[in-house]
């Protein structure tokens, strides 16, 4: 019998003593809700029992292991990755069947799967390949270079007076030139074959800042050895060579005799270009080989500083071949010239 006004006292008494089951408590609670004046007079013990019984966890449904609108994304993703148990898969299918609008949204998940574009390839693989050669440790390379330098110095010292070792740069003779400086007179004519950098010369691997990650070996050592032997000033150019010269391919340039050196420099002056700065590095000395070489004057359009260097192409100092290192390419050959007798060229140290 449900509680009513006549038996409510009996119900409350039984409730206070814990003698009502859940169904009776629910009936009692419903009656009290409908009759607040009775609720106001209820004994606290009865109320406590009833209230405890009716306390429910909000959102209890969400805790159940069932597919809901809240967790359907997770279930769907797991299903797409085939990581969903069959029972849950069935539950998901039932849920989606019941909620077609949610299904339409979830179906977009299958488009979020990315597919690689196989046509995109890394084009510079040749830069990544390495040879079998084991990399020689730096200290060994340094020691070897020092040994070669010492040997070169020793040989050179025996063959030439020490004055020839002084680093000098070719400049045009002018009023201010110190006449006491050594003068070289070109005595013979010789056509020089320019050597082109070998096509297979490895390009330096560049870092993210565009700097070479590793020096070119053994080419660099050979260059370094020769130039260290002739000048300490070489080190000034080391960075420049590393950063600017080595990465460049030198294009072949055929020599044509157009002007003498002095004419070329004079014209250069007329054009407002800096006459100084043509450094002729050939062989051990910057002076002696010049008389046997046909030099090439390279200029950069619109730039006043010297754009090119002529340097020995290999460690064989007797070789007449020169390699033109382009320091600031792209370049244009404006003038070529040949030192012809009795042209006199004076050299002075470049300050």
């Amino acid at each position: 019998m449900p509680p009513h006004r006549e038996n409510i006292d009996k119900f409350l008494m039984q409730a206070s003593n814990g003698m009502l089951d859940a169904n009776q408590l629910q009936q009692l609670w419903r009656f009290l809700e409908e009759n607040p004046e009775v609720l106001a007079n209820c004994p606290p013990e009865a109320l406590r029992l009833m209230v405890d019984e009716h306390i429910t966890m909000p959102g209890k449904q969400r805790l159940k292991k069932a597919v809901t609108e809240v967790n359907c994304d997770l279930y769907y993703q797991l299903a797409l990755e085939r990581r969903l148990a069959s029972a849950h898969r069935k539950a998901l299918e039932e849920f989606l069947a019941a909620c077609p609008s949610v299904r339409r949204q979830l179906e977009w998940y299958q488009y979020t799967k990315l597919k690689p574009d196989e046509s995109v390839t890394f084009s510079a693989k040749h830069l990544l390949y390495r040879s079998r050669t084991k990399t020689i440790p730096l200290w060994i390379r340094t020691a070897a270079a020092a040994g070669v330098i010492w040997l070169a110095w020793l040989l050179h010292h025996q063959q030439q007076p020490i004055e020839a070792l002084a680093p000098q740069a070719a400049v045009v003779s002018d009023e201010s030139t110190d006449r006491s400086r050594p003068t070289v007179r070109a005595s013979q004519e010789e056509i020089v074959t320019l050597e082109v950098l070998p096509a297979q010369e490895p390009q330096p691997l560049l870092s993210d800042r565009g700097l070479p990650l590793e020096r070119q070996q053994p080419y660099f050592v050979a260059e370094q050895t020769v130039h260290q032997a002739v000048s300490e000033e070489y080190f000034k150019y080391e960075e420049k060579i590393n950063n600017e010269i080595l990465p460049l391919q030198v294009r072949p340039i055929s020599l044509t005799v157009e002007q003498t050196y002095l004419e070329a420099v004079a014209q250069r002056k007329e054009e407002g270009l800096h006459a100084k700065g043509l450094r002729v590095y050939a062989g051990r000395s910057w002076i002696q080989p010049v008389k046997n070489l046909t030099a090439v004057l390279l200029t950069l359009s619109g730039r006043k500083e010297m754009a090119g260097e002529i340097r020995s192409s290999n460690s064989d100092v007797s070789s007449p071949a020169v390699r033109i290192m382009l320091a600031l390419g792209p370049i244009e050959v404006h003038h070529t010239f040949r030192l012809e007798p009795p042209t006199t060229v004076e050299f002075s140290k470049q300050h």
Partner: protein
Amino acid sequence: MTADQYNQCVDLYADRIYRFVLKHLGRVAEAKDIVQSSFEILWRNHERVEFQRSRSYLFQVAYRLLLKSFEQTQVVELTDDLELTAREQPLGLREALDVALARLSPVQKALVLLRDYEGYRYDEIAAITGLSEAQVKVYLFRARKKLKDFLVSLHHVV
């Protein structure tokens, strides 16, 4: 790893790492730099990296370089304002996905790419990225949901 094996790695993985980095960064020159740097680092350590581990090693290095690159580059965050998109030309699915991908955080984007492009397992992705497996799962779930939500919104707007 021998030099031959290293060169084999170049053949096998250079393209894949390049795709991964390029898709993530969207900048060709930088992507190439990162690939080169990754292989440079592999070469420096090739004597102690086993060939079998080289793939994940390379992705690990590339991933770190990616994040470093992101730190150094100012990235303009895209707004979530969908009205902007609505005024633009309607996007194809691929373009829309690219736009959505760009809205993910660098880590989320990398996780999605590692998962989809390379098919890495969660534990492998965790090893590459240095995250826990649970984190990988959560980040991937959120990333995928973001992508889906963006596509749904776009679809409704268009």
